[in-house]
């Protein structure tokens, strides 16, 4: 250190420096408030993001499903009733229809007549 004779240090400086440096491991490095809460903030932000994305996707899917349901109902309505009116009378069976159906099913005509009269009575 012969070339370093132009700079001095306070008395006992290097002994004091050594002590201060060796105290570094025992120094409790307290984390700041930000450092303490930042993992929780990150967790909360991730959760909020997940909920927001999930909500967005779910609401989109539900809206699409509802739209599809209404489209299908509308389609069925239009197919069944092009004029917008369902005429139930067309689908009502007459007594004659029932008689024909029973005859086709090999029910004896006498029995059909007998039952028909009983109903009338």
């Amino acid at each position, binding site marked *: 250190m012969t070339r370093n004779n132009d700079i001095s*240090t306070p008395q006992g400086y290097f002994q004091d420096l050594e002590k201060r440096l060796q105290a570094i491991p025992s120094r409790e490095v307290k984390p700041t408030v930000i450092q303490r809460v930042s993992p929780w903030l990150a967790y909360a932000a991730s959760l909020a993001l997940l909920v927001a994305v999930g909500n967005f996707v779910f609401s989109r899917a539900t809206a699409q499903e509802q739209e599809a349901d209404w489209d299908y109902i509308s389609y069925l309505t239009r197919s069944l009733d092009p004029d917008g009116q369902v005429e139930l009378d067309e689908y009502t069976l007459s007594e004659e229809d029932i008689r024909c159906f029973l005859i086709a099913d090999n029910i004896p005509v006498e029995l059909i007549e007998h039952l028909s009269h009983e109903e009338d009575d």
Partner: protein
Amino acid sequence: MQASLEQVFNAIVREYSERLWWHVRRMVGSHEDTDDLLQEIFLKIWTALPSFRGEAQYYTWVWRIATNETLNWLRRERVRAALRFSSAEEQAVQRIEGDPYFNGTAAQRELAKAVARLPEKQRQVFVMRWWDELPYEEISAITGTSVGALKASYHLAQEKVKLNLSDAEVSK
């Protein structure tokens, strides 16, 4: 495990603190800044000690942290000086002129000022060769620069120091 790390750290402090202090003191130019920076350097060494894998020797590893931290400090100083509409070199020269711990000759003060005007990397090589008296091979291991490049850098630094000294002579 913790106790053995502390023992290693204490040994590093005992072995290197004074030598590193002189290196940082030459680079920074002020007693107080050196004291603060050395605390930062050893805090960094303590923090990084568990991850020390032994690929390098403690000597090289410790010196590398110290030189990197010192260069970072000088870069921050450059920004601080720019914010005060000044240059880092001029600030360093002013620190040397007003240094209460400087008790050398006028020529030694001029040399310190001439070195303070060097670019950071050249200053680092000059300080490590001239004052720290480290061999090129060791500087190479610490800085990761080839011996050839270090010799060229030191030669350039010497030339600039000579020029700065002759300028100072003329301006008297």
